[in-house]
């Protein structure tokens, strides 16, 4: 029986706590008597018969007819799937998307459907490489569809392949992939790693264009999303749901298939990363010592390569299909069941160990902007109720934060770092002053459409992601970060955790309470 999440009150007997530091980790002693550590619930047991469960979900959808009944010869069927940003780290083969898509295709073949397109719903993310596509959908699907040109990636900058469906009552434009909009049935294959994913966000964001996205990917919405993980209190989700309504009204028929994974994040030798420190076995301690010492001497490039080759032993805990909203309600329950940890009260200082990976740097580099996004956008938002850190509190992150950018994946990030951040770190100001220029830059568009680059506007979105945290906290400290880079981000560099706590003390006093989010594996703190 997996144990639920756990909030540890740190005392003098508590061993030092594991902090991620990018492509490495360290053990940090937290002050006794006023610190606590939030541990994620242990991975839930997986569904044993995955294929059977998928089939069952397709045959018994929620508030919709069984999938085979919706399929007919001569129809246009489009299958859209989540892109490379999910799950993290990538899961061991076979990927759950492959299993679901194959099950859908089986039924389509039986029903005599010939016109099938499979689209990677990547919005403004970078395109997936062939290897990544093969990993996600499997070789069988790839070899059958890619050569025919019917397995391809959504292009948010291709005016010929977008269709404008109108506006929401709030005046938000809704524009999505033309093929998806014109299909008789759009089957969306989703992976719900966190409560933010899925629902109408899958289609209304994943298959849309900049024109549509800008209505909810902006500082105003982000600040009023409290948090992204709680869809009922998230402006981001409300906007997506309004857009979903427009989609429905304009006749787009969506068959949503959502899956949830457990938090079995690290394969065996790295199992200690998800363990509670006092339960480390001698082998865990050996692995920790050996790997930290080795990683200290390993060139960063090689370390990245090693880490990005980690494949998680994630396993499916639920699959449900049918009506988008009905399905997503159940999915969210499953995600919460895996991730929710009850936490009493806020804290003065929130400490976060930033790992090597975020949704936006798979097989890539966690550049300084993504460090900010990971800490302030994701980890800060891992709450329900109220943020873990009190208003006016301090966030301390640990990450090397080198000014390293992946030139192919993140070209606009480099300019954003050099130009925009040099000018301002205020999300509102930059959205007024700089966003348009980056969104419409032809070179960025070209790179996005033809190579493997994120859209020009993407770094802005990353920065907006952290808007609420920037407004909420009075100081952000990065331990071990490159000082110049950290200052450029508007944060304070510190060399050690003790230094960071000293630096924080003039904001939060000499004896602040400290909370450490022991992630990954991911969890959502239910703060009351």
């Amino acid at each position, binding site marked *: 029986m997996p144990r639920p999440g756990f909030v*540890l*009150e*740190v*005392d003098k*007997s*508590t*061993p*030092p706590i594991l902090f991620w530091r990018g492509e490495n980790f360290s*053990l940090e002693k937290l002050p006794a008597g006023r610190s606590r550590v939030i541990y994620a619930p242990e991975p839930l047991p997986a569904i044993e018969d995955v294929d059977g469960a998928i089939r069952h979900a397709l045959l018994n959808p929620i508030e919709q007819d069984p999938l085979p009944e919706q399929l007919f010869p001569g129809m246009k069927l489009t299958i859209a799937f989540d892109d490379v940003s999910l799950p993290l780290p990538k899961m061991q083969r076979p990927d759950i998307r492959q299993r679901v898509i194959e099950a859908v295709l089986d039924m389509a073949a039986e029903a005599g459907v010939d016109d099938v397109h499979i689209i990677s719903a990547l919005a403004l993310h970078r395109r997936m490489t062939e290897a990544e596509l093969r990993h996600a959908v499997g070789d069988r699907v790839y070899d059958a569809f890619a050569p025919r040109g019917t397995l391809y990636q959504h292009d948010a900058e291709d005016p010929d392949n977008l269709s404008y469906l109108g506006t929401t009552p709030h005046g938000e434009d809704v524009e999505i992939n033309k093929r998806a909009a014109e299909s008789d049935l759009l089957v969306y294959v989703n992976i719900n790693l966190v409560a933010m994913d899925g629902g109408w966000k899958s289609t209304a964001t994943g298959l849309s264009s900049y024109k549509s996205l800008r209505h909810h990917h902006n500082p105003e919405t982000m600040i009023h999303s409290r948090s992204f993980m709680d869809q009922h209190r998230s402006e981001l989700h409300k906007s997506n749901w309004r857009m979903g309504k427009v989609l429905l009204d304009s006749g787009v028929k969506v068959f949503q298939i959502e899956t949830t994974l457990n938090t079995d994040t690290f394969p065996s030798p790295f199992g200690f990363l998800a363990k*509670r*420190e*006092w*339960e*480390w076995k*001698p082998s*865990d*301690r050996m692995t*920790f*010592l050996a790997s930290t010492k080795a990683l200290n001497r390993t060139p960063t490039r090689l370390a990245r390569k090693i880490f990005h080759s980690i494949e998680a032993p994630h396993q499916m805990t639920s699959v449900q299909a049918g009506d988008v909203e009905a399905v997503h309600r159940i999915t969210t329950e499953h995600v919460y069941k895996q991730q929710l940890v009850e936490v009493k009260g806020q804290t003065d200082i929130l400490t976060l160990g930033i790992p090597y990976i975020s949704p936006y740097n798979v097989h890539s580099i966690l550049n300084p902007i993504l460090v900010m996004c990971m800490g302030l956008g994701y980890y800060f938002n891992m709450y329900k109720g109220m943020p873990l850190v009190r208003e006016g509190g301090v966030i301390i992150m640990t990450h090397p934060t080198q000014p390293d950018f992946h030139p192919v994946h993140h070209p606009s990030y480099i300019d954003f770092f050099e130009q925009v951040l040099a000018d301002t770190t205020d999300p509102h100001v930059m959205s007024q002053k700089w966003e348009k220029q980056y969104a419409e830059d032809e070179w960025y568009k070209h790179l996005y459409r033809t190579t493997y680059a994120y859209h020009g506007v993407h770094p802005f979105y990353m920065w907006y992601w952290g808007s609420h945290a920037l407004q909420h906290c009075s100081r952000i400290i990065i331990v071990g970060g490159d000082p110049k880079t950290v200052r450029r981000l508007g944060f304070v560099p510190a060399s050690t955790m003790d230094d960071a706590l000293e630096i924080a003390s003039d904001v939060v006093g000499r004896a602040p309470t400290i909370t450490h989010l022991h992630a990954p594996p991911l969890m959502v703190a239910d703060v009351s």
Partner: protein
Amino acid sequence: MARDDAPWKPSNLAKAARIGELVERITHPIAKRTYRKGFPYLPPTIPLGVEVPEDKPTLGADYDTDWARRSSAKFVRKGLVNGPIRLAVRGLASPKVYGVDRLHDLAQLKDPPPLIFTPNHHSHLDTAVMAVAVPEPWRSKLVVAAAADYFFDKRWKATMAALALNAIPIDREVTGRKSSDMIKELIDDGWSLMIYPEGGRSPDGWGQDFKGGAAYLSARTGAAVVPVFIDGTGALFGKGMKRPKIGTTKVVFGAPMRALEDENTRRFSARIEAEVAELGDESLTDFWTARQRSARNESTKLTGPEYTGWRRQWALSERREMGTAGLRRRQKRRWPDIGN
């Protein structure tokens, strides 16, 4: 006294302490440095607010012996039993085996049924003697119920017991659900069981009351119980003896028994006990005398006379005198027969 070695010499402990001090002088600085580094060089300390879950026990009654019944382990065991164990048993105890003919009919069957052997228990030698004395085809498919608290308390002991004797752990006092399920499975698989219904070695040379385990298992699995009396092992290597003595032993097998209709476990168990006692009588006297005494209900009980104290011990020595088994007495030196 605190020490039973020569108390006028410095004790081993004192010597060890002196050596320890010397070694410590060298290792202490290194140890101190390691100690200062703490976790993760040292095991983590447990935070106060954390309830340490009890380790799932993997020893004692929870020791998993499945591996010992794989073919490779069987092969090793065959070598052990027929080699060193047989030699040792012969050298130490020279067992004479009687009554195997009572099992003859069953052995002739195409599919000999699994049996439950229930010997009396005086010595660790019993198991080894039985491992050698039990006739084929049961010998090679014999598991031995061994006290979980004694044979399975340390990993090395458990491994040895499981490998060499095909022992399975069982609680002395109550046959727990888990143990009995496991045994049922084994018997259903065709394994025969040897179990000491007394639950432990005799503390004083007399037997102890039989516990109901064997009878219960027989009723539950349908396997017949074969009563066995082992004589002499107590004198050779009884409880509390530090090293075994050399002597002779006797093993008498009885006829297979089953619970009668409407006989409950308790009564069946008593009947097994009586049968073992009668076999004991048989081994001390002869078949006919034993029968007669049994018919008159005069067989000496396994558990010995009712009285306590020295008379009990006295009666025991009497009994041992009667038997041929036991210590190998030195032949009385006789004058050479040079003829008249």
